[in-house]
């Protein structure tokens, strides 16, 4: 019997995104509901071990395209492998993580397979073989039900929106070698180099995020070193002291550091930390906002967090309306104590 549900394992340099296993695990549940099997798709070079992990998370079969030409991620080459395999295997549903790779690969595969793609789905139900999915639109200000009229139904799942995956080391499955689908001169893209980003927990996968806003630079008591004289530099230097406190709390909580756009635009912290409508949309279990006013564009990116804590000097800051717990105070006064108190309670 052919496996009618497929799950794409998004990996980079041999490391799978945590969201990939959520997708495999969710695919397993869907396949059981439909009375069919689950196939995972692993594409890369030297990625055999990921095929085994996919089996542990629920795959019955793994289409493994392991080829030197697939070492570097190139969207068209990867999408072509997936689309070619799908046009032969005829799945009903193909799931992807909502990563940037997931979005573009699903898009390209939709073109090849002449079907539709449902992006960034946060919930779904089965009606027979038809998925009825829910996805946020307008940065989560509204929700839309969506259905795919073509086949296969291509769906990208938002990270952390579905059940936490559990691996079962005793599971077994088959691995089917799958060929690369594009010749080098058709791909037309060469990867010349790569620099790894600073290490740290990725915002979208984080279960705890501690964020800072423009308020991080507001501490008149701080004295910058003598060589920092320029007004803008002083502001950035101060904000960086605030972000140090934020980073300390984040590391005690095992979380990631986020920021408002005002903090990013002012040069306090790189854009990769920006949360919001034009940054990352996140929904951690715990979001601690420090010196962030709560503009609608920021709220759009974090409103669905389970527990929101706000520390802000201004009692009228809009962020307090969305916060489970609020502290009206200077972040510089609270954060060091909060970090110490959390450390004590988490027994670290």
């Amino acid at each position, binding site marked *: 019997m052919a496996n009618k549900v497929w799950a794409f394992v998004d990996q*980079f340099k041999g490391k799978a995104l945590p969201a990939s296993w959520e997708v495999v695990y969710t695919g397993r549940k869907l396949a059981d509901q439909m009375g069919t099997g689950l196939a995972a798709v692993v594409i890369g070079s030297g990625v055999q071990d990921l095929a085994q992990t996919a089996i542990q998370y629920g795959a019955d079969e793994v289409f493994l395209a392991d080829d030197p030409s697939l070492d570097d991620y190139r*969207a*068209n080459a990867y*999408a072509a492998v997936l689309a070619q395999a799908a046009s032969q295997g005829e799945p009903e549903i193909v799931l992807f993580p909502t*990563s*940037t790779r997931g*979005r*573009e690969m*699903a*898009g*390209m595969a*939709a*073109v*090849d397979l002449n*079907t*539709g793609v449902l*992006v960034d789905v946060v919930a779904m139900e089965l009606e027979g073989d038809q998925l009825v999915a829910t996805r*946020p*639109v*307008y*940065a989560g*200000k*509204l929700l*839309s*039900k*969506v*259905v*795919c*009229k073509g086949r296969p139904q291509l769906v990208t799942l938002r990270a952390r929106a579905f059940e936490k995956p559990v691996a079962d080391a005793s599971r077994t499955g088959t691995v089917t070698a799958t060929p690369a689908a594009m010749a080098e001169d058709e791909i*037309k893209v*060469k*990867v010349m*180099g790569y*620099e*790894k*980003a600073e290490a740290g927990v990725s915002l979208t996968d984080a279960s*705890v995020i501690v964020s800072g806003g423009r308020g991080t630079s507001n501490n008149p008591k701080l004295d910058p070193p003598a060589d920092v004289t320029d007004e803008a530099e002083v502001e950035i230097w101060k904000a960086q002291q605030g972000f140090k406190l934020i980073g300390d709390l984040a590391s005690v909580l095992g979380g990631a550091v986020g920021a408002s756009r005002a903090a990013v635009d002012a040069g306090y912290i790189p*854009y*990769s930390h920006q949360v919001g*409508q*034009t940054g990352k949309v996140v929904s951690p*279990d*715990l979001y601690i906002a420090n010196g962030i006013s709560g*503009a*609608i*564009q920021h709220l759009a990116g974090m409103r669905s967090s*389970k*527990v929101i804590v706000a520390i802000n000097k201004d009692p009228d800051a809009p962020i*307090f*309306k*969305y*916060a*489970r*717990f*609020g*502290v009206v105070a200077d972040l510089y006064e609270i954060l060091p*104590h*909060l970090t*110490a*108190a959390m450390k004590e309670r988490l027994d670290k």
Partner: protein
Amino acid sequence: MKIIVCVKQVPDSAATMSVDNGKVSWGDAPLVINPWDEYAVEAALRLTEEHGGDVVALSLGDENAKEAIKHALAMGCSEAILVNDPAMAGADTQAVARVLAAAIQKIGDADVVVFGKQAIDSDVGATPAMVARLLGWPALTLVSQISEVNGSSIKAERTMEEGRQQVEAGLPAVLSIVKDYGEPRYPSFIGIRKASRAQVPEWTAADMGITAPEAMVAWPEVMEPPARQIANEIIEGGSPEEIAAKLADKIMEEKVL
């Protein structure tokens, strides 16, 4: 160089969205150019400033899309085209991509087609990849820097979650631009005057020799998210140390760690 930049019109990011009788409403918020597309226009203009050539702004939408187009013209694009066809009303991403690809072919001779990263209304982020696939061109998405362009290839840096990747692609190519590229310019006074006088040709699907593609995705319902009941609690009283200790206890009680 001939560059096409795809711009979409969207409700302002500050809009409060609601659903009235099943229809999406943004109240009296203005319609604006998709914020990500401003970076795309900036990249397109800088390319022609360095290498010569023209930028054509392309948008699919109804009469309303003129604001996005005007903004692109005011920033410095030399021409614009609006694809406006009532048959495209329920278009999904692939239908949009097919129409944009047809328009790009009708405009002809493009070396580079530049996109924003994502539209802030539909939040899909797949249109650039789809258009590239339809045209059979390479896609360099999430571009933060363009380092070199010559007659037949482009070198750029992509900013991904995992790091920065230096890539080279043959031309013609599709690019999508991210914020790290650099701030978009403000429209100049002269630019705004020019834009307000510009004649923007409108094309239908038939003008491009295609029939409006059928949507593969349907959205039977749009809803406002269920209101979340948040029990706000202000932690106060005592020294910062005492407040921090209280807050820490409260956080622990939530059992999210």
